[in-house]
């Protein structure tokens, strides 16, 4: 038995909003692989819960009329990985969430929960940052759309206002069209581990595939929340696809990242990882985009 004060099950999005307004102290529970574990640990014990797990309308991936890729917030990691639209337009997201926990966790864990808990190590977050994802929030005043970088406020805290729940994650067409990306999770073991550092890169090459027209890079566990490395991005834009340009880009990330010492890894090691993963992930992205690395 879980130490739960009361459980309210939402039957629709408006009902969920109503329940959240009626019970302002309540915690939203989606798949529960964070919330239930925290209850077991005592951290969230004795609280009221509003369960949105039953809201099937928040599951699945669709393509909107303007080409925006829409991921329902309750879509499980395993369903994202298997989804044909994800595989076609942003395969790296499916690969990234296929590295979360283990198979059972990927069946219960939702992408909405992964982003709403506000942790820096979330395997989906760095890729969503790197692809300019937009978070859709539905609340008493209607729908609000927030760029994911603005959604994260600080470690463990996101811009989720009273009565609001996250209903979707949107990838605009301009953000994915012509881009190819790669995610690398560095952890101590292959399964059931949290990223020591995660790095997601994507690139758009010029028509002749010799120049990096645009490069985007984001990290998990390089700071208190997931983050973009904008200085490095700026340094890579317009550069030829040479080994030297890729290395120079990778070294520049040190101007952006701000990892800390923790029991998982030392700051020095995480800085080393940030550079190494940037080089490898950009190299792979260029190859995926049909380019070559000139030595």
């Amino acid at each position, binding site marked *: 038995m879980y130490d739960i004060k009361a459980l309210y099950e939402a039957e629709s999005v408006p009902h969920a909003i109503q329940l959240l307004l009626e019970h302002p102290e309540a915690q939203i529970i989606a798949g529960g692989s964070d919330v239930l574990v925290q209850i077991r640990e005592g951290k969230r014990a004795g609280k009221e819960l509003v369960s949105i797990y039953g809201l099937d309308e928040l599951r699945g991936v669709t393509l909107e009329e303007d080409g925006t890729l829409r991921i329902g917030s309750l879509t499980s990691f395993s369903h994202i990985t298997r989804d044909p639209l994800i595989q076609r337009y942003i395969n790296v997201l499916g690969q990234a969430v296929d590295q979360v926990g283990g198979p059972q*966790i990927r069946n219960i864990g939702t992408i909405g929960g992964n982003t709403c808990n506000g942790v820096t190590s979330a395997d989906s977050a760095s890729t969503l940052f790197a692809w300019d994802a937009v978070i859709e929030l539905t609340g008493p005043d209607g729908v609000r759309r927030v760029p994911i970088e603005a959604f994260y406020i600080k470690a463990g805290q996101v811009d989720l206002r009273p009565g609001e729940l996250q209903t979707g994650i949107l990838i605009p067409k301009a953000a994915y069209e012509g881009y190819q990306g790669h995610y690398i999770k560095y952890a101590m073991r292959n399964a059931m581990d949290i990223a020591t550092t995660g790095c997601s890169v994507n690139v758009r090459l010029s028509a002749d595939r010799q120049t990096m027209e645009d490069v985007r890079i984001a990290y998990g566990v390089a700071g208190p929340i997931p983050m973009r490395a904008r200085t490095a991005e700026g340094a890579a834009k317009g550069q030829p696809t040479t080994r030297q340009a890729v290395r120079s880009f990778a070294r520049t990330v040190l101007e952006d990242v701000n990892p800390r010492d923790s029991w998982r890894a030392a700051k020095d090691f995480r800085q080393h990882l940030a550079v190494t993963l940037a080089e490898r992930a950009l190299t792979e992205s260029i190859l995926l985009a049909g380019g070559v690395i000139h030595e």
Partner: protein
Amino acid sequence: MSKQYKLVRCTINGKQVEKMIDVRASLTDMLRDDYRLTSIKKGCEVGECGACNVLVNGECFNSCIYLAVWADGKEILTLEGLAGPNGEISDIQQAFIDEAAVQCGFCTPGFIMSATEILASGREYSDDEIRKQMSGHLCRCTGYENIFRAVKKTMLRRLGKNAEADAV
């Protein structure tokens, strides 16, 4: 607050059932305490060890971090559901015995249910894919190699590749 209950209707191992369930119960609690299905083990109870793994609508879930009320309307398969009409064990269970993939047995039902999801797909998986699909379980008797062989052999036999299975 007074105790809160909800009527949970679901199919467990092919049988339609319903009971009033305490909303604080995990699916592990419901299956063990209300339905006496003790193949579901309480290991870590935080979704790390896989000893409580069951299939819900054909997908593996750690029932310890799955609220029992969410099972309403779902089809649940536990190890008990693998038995034939006269209590015969299934091919994957027999393979665990043949390969000595069982030592203390605590992790076994969870492993077998993950194997059941893999085998139900009818696909042939590479060794790495099998290892990845089985990676949500801990075996403290360190029997992983034997478990891997049991799953791989059963997969190959179901695909009619008996000679390959014998060579594993």
